């Protein structure tokens, strides 16, 4: 017991160090577009530094991984169809900020020129609308599916993850009405902008999108942290731990699970709309099943339920996927070895996951909770008599 104070002090030192680390990373993160050229010109590591536009996609991918983490990591609902939310968000942006519905012309706070046909809302507003719309999609998908447990839920979400891209690929003629422009996707989708200042028209548009992406990611992290420590977050973890007990303690299962799904969907929707604007389009080819799995890999690699873990996992896998493997491949080939890792990318991710499961199943930065091993019934001390503990003989905990 005397060591308790020391432990607290150690904790505080560690917490302080963590905050410094976070502050440092934040500063580097914020000025990244300004220093990327300097970094790239450095010897040896320069080639491995990702471009700013890659960073935008990496950051938003990580944001989606954090959204998925609420569903999978917090509430323990294995969702294999998260890409459906990404698609819903991207297509919301497509519908509300492009010439897709050229039958009408409606402008509201948009950065495009007034005469342009189609619906053009402010892209900022669309980020929120996409989140709201995707939340509704999430609730609609969730209501029938979340009654299922474990494997069954995984399979049904897998189904929805397949249905959505199939739907957008084929919804170019619903009784003659073109909803999604089929396999061609919707393009161009409007740029973000403030008044007459259109991001896409600027020479440093990647930098501008990058900063917005950073803000979105930080908001997601913030919301993740707050929710984790809230009444709702506790209910999620209780459901993850023991659904029956949670219900018996007054946690409404359906409502609580649906909230996890809805919040995950909201984040996926905002991220989807943002990426659609950044890439200036929403294309069905982006919404394949393997993207759901890729996001899940980020969560598993980082540590299910761990915000910092998923952040790290998302950044690592996102980087490898966009640039890392290609860079490594070109280095390898410069070295004279005929091997292109990008051809084997999913094989490589698979190997990473298998190795993680073998050697560090709780992830790179495990959730605080996973660090403890449940040691039920190992010790055995008397019940309801702590008040006169002194009179008790200490029994050997190893006797059972």
């Amino acid at each position, binding site marked *: 017991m005397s060591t308790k104070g020391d432990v607290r002090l150690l904790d505080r030192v560690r917490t302080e160090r963590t905050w410094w680390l976070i502050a440092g990373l934040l500063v580097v993160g914020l000025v990244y577009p300004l220093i990327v050229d300097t970094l790239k010109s450095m010897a040896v590591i320069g080639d491995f530094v990702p471009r700013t536009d890659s960073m935008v996609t990496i950051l938003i991918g990580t944001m989606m991984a954090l959204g998925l983490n609420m569903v999978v990591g917090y509430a323990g609902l294995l969702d294999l169809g998260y890409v459906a939310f990404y698609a819903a968000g991207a297509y919301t942006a497509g519908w509300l900020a492009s010439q897709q519905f050229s039958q009408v012309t409606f402008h509201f706070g948009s950065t495009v020129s007034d005469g342009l046909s189609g619906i053009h809302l402010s892209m900022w507003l669309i980020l929120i609308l996409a989140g709201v719309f995707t939340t509704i999609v999430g609730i609609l998908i969730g209501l029938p599916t979340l009654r299922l447990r474990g494997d069954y839920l995984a399979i049904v979400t897998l189904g929805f993850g397949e249905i959505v891209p199939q739907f957008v690929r084929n919804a170019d003629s619903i009784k003659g009405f073109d909803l999604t422009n089929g396999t061609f996707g919707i393009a161009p989708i409007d740029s973000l902008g403030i008044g007459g200042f259109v991001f896409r028209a600027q020479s440093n548009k990647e930098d501008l999108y990058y900063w917005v992406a950073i803000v979105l990611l930080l908001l997601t992290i913030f919301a993740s942290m*707050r929710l984790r420590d809230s009444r*709702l977050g506790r209910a999620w973890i*209780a459901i993850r731990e023991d659904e029956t*007990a949670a219900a018996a*303690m*007054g946690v409404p299962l359906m409502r609580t699970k649906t909230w996890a799904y809805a919040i995950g969907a909201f984040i996926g929707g905002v991220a989807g709309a943002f990426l659609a604007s950044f890439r200036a389009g929403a294309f069905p080819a982006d919404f394949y099943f393997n993207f759901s799995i890729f996001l899940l890999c980020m969560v598993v690699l980082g540590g299910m339920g761990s915000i910092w873990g998923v952040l790290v996992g998302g950044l690592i896998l996102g980087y490898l996927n966009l640039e890392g493997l290609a860079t490594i491949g070109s280095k390898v080939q410069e070295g004279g070895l005929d091997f292109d890792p990008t051809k084997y990318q999913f094989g490589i991710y698979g190997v990473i996951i298998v190795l993680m499961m073998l050697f560090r199943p709780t992830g790179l930065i495990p959730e605080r909770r996973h660090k403890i091993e449940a040691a039920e019934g190992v010790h055995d001390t*008397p*019940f309801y008599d702590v008040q006169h503990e002194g009179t008790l003989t200490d029994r050997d905990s190893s006797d059972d």
Partner: protein
Amino acid sequence: MTAPVDNLLVATQVRKEFGGLVASNDIDFAIPRGSIVALIGPNGAGKTTFFNQITGVYVPTSGSIVFDGVEVVGKPPHAIVELGIGRTFQNIRLFAQMTAIENVQVGMHCRLRGGIFGSILHTPRVKREERESRERARELLTYCGLPRRHEEYAGTLPYGDQRRLEAARALATDPKLLLLDEPTAGMNPQETADFTDFVRRARDDKGLTVLLIEHDMKVVMGVSEYITVLEYGAKIAEGSPSEIQSNERVIEAYLGKGAAA
């Protein structure tokens, strides 16, 4: 138990069939407000099944269960908790990866109001509610005999403390009726005696009504005011401890020679 004045829970003709097996065979059952009632019977008599119908885990095939004037059959478990029925489990079912305090706070779930936006924005109301719920959780834990180790994970607590924590978590739901499913399983005589004291104390302090399933006859005879005996899903006897002890049917079917003890 002829026409008690004020019943907190009245079960009428409760029947539960699992395929061909009749787990509850038209059970009539009442719990007088403020009493401690024991449900006993041999293994497989349908005690836990009956519990699970009160708490909404199972829906009876037929029959009605009225709690405090409200029909609970068909209600989901969380709604029944909200009405005021709290429970513990036969095999401890804590949230192992949550701290003791968090476990108790989960028990308070339906009594708290913090929503999504309030939680993200940390509105003063949510902050105060969280602070108060933590304080109340500490009080409850201390009341249940766990004055320390509040920040430790439930899974790392010793067995006895886990039992205490489960009691605290059940009390956190603010129940009128507390259901205890074999609470003294795995306890030594001293612990069992302490537990019986605790049940009485909790009943008096918090105005509870208690229904417990128990195999330990010392506990049953010592703590309960009424006893109901089940066998093969059917009620075979009910009455005061002394009545049950001398009941031929019960001695025959269940207690055997041990009844003399």
